[in-house]
C-alpha cells in the first residue's frame, strides 16, 4: 500500500451542513471516499491509501482539478483505493461533495 497526503487551498468552501458522508466501496477499480467537515473553510486535506504504487503525480493532478472545480473547503477527505482509474476517482470525489451538501436524511 502507498499512503499519500495532500493539503490543498480550495477557492470555495463546501456547502451544506452535514458533518460527514461516505461514497463508494473498496473493490477492484473502485474506491471509498469518506468526507468529514472538521477543518478551516479554506483548507482541504486529502489522505489516500492506495493499492497501486507509483501514481502520486496522477493523484495530485486529479486532486488539483477537484479542488478547483468543486466546493471542497473545510473537508477532511480520506480515501481507501482499490486501484481506481482517475475518472472513477473524480466521479467519487464529486459524488462525495454532493452528498455532504444534502440535508441529513
Amino acid at each position, binding site marked *: *500500500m502507498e499512503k499519500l497526503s495532500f493539503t490543498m487551498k480550495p477557492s470555495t468552501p463546501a456547502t451544506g451542513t452535514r458533518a460527514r458522508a*461516505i461514497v463508494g*466501496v*473498496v473493490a477492484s477499480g473502485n474506491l*471509498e471516499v469518506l468526507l*468529514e467537515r472538521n477543518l478551516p473553510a479554506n483548507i482541504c486535506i486529502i489522505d489516500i*491509501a492506495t493499492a497501486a504504487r507509483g501514481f502520486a503525480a496522477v493523484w495530485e493532478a486529479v486532486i488539483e482539478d477537484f479542488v478547483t472545480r468543486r466546493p471542497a473547503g473545510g473537508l477532511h477527505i480520506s480515501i481507501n483505493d*482499490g486501484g481506481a482509474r482517475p475518472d472513477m476517482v473524480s466521479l467519487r470525489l464529486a459524488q462525495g461533495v454532493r452528498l455532504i451538501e444534502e440535508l441529513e*436524511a
Partner: protein
Amino acid sequence: MTSENSWYEAGARQRVAALLDPGSFAEFIGPEQREISPHLAIFDLPEQFDDGIIVGHGTLEGRRILVAAQEGRFMGGAFGEVHGAKLTGLLRAARTLGEPVLILFDTGGVRLQEANAGELAIAEIMRALVEARMAGVQVVGLIGGRAGCYGGGSLIAGCCSALIVSEQGRISVSGPEVIETNKGIEEFDSRDRALVWRTMGGKHRYLIGGADAFADDDVLAFREAALIVLAGNGRLDADVLEAEQQRLEHRLHRFGKAHDAIDIWTDIGVSEPTEIPGLATDEFLRRTTNKRETANGAR
C-alpha cells in the same frame, strides 16, 4: 432481470436505506470511527473504514429493529475479526433489548487472510444468534446479493428464525469452485451457471425449505417479505429442533439419490419442472403453491 431498485445491484448502505423507514437508520461504529481490520495491512491489502459491514438500528413500519448489512463487493463480503465482532455485538444487543434483527447477507464466507479470527467470529456469531433466539428474539436473514451466502455465512443463515431469498440469492456451505476443486468437474462444473443457480439459487432453496420466503430482486419486495416474516413467532425450542431434524432426515431419504434439482422438482410434483428457472416470480409461486417443503424455524 434487474430493476431500478434491484437488491442485487445495490450496495449495503443503499439496501439498508431502502429497507427501513426513510431516515430512520442510525449506525453503530460508523466508518468515521475507522474500526478497520488489524490483519489486512500485514498482507498489504486495502482496508475499508466499516470493514465491509454496517450495523445499526432503525424502524420498520414504526417498529424498532436492529440491522446488519454486508458489503459483498469488499473482499466478497467475507467475515474478518472486526466484521464479525460488529455482528456479534449487534446480536448480543438484540438479546438485551429484545428487538428483532435483520441480517442482510452478502458473503463468500470467512476472509482467508484472517483465518482463525474469522472462524472464531463465525462461532461467536452463531452462539450470540442462538442465545438471542432462545430469549425470544427473531433474527431474519435476507439473501439476494452478488456474493450470495456461502461458507460460514451459510451456517449463520442456518441458525436464523427465517430466511428471505430472491432468485439471485445463492445459499450453500461450499461454493461452486470449492466443490469442483475438491471433487472434480464431473461432480460439479462451476462454470455451468445454470447448474449453479439450479442447485444453490433462491428458487431451489425455497422449494426444499432452505428459505422461507421468496422475493423479487427488488428492495421493496424484500421489505414487504420482511414485514410478513416478522409477523411470525420465530420460536426456537427442543420441539422445533426435533421436528426439523425429522424433516431433514426425511428429505435426505427422499431426495438423497437425486442427481439434479430438476429430479427433486419433478418428485415434489411441480408441473413442467424444466421451466422453473425461467419463470417470473408470480408464475413461479403460483406453480409451486402447496408443493414446496416448509422448514420449522430451524434448518
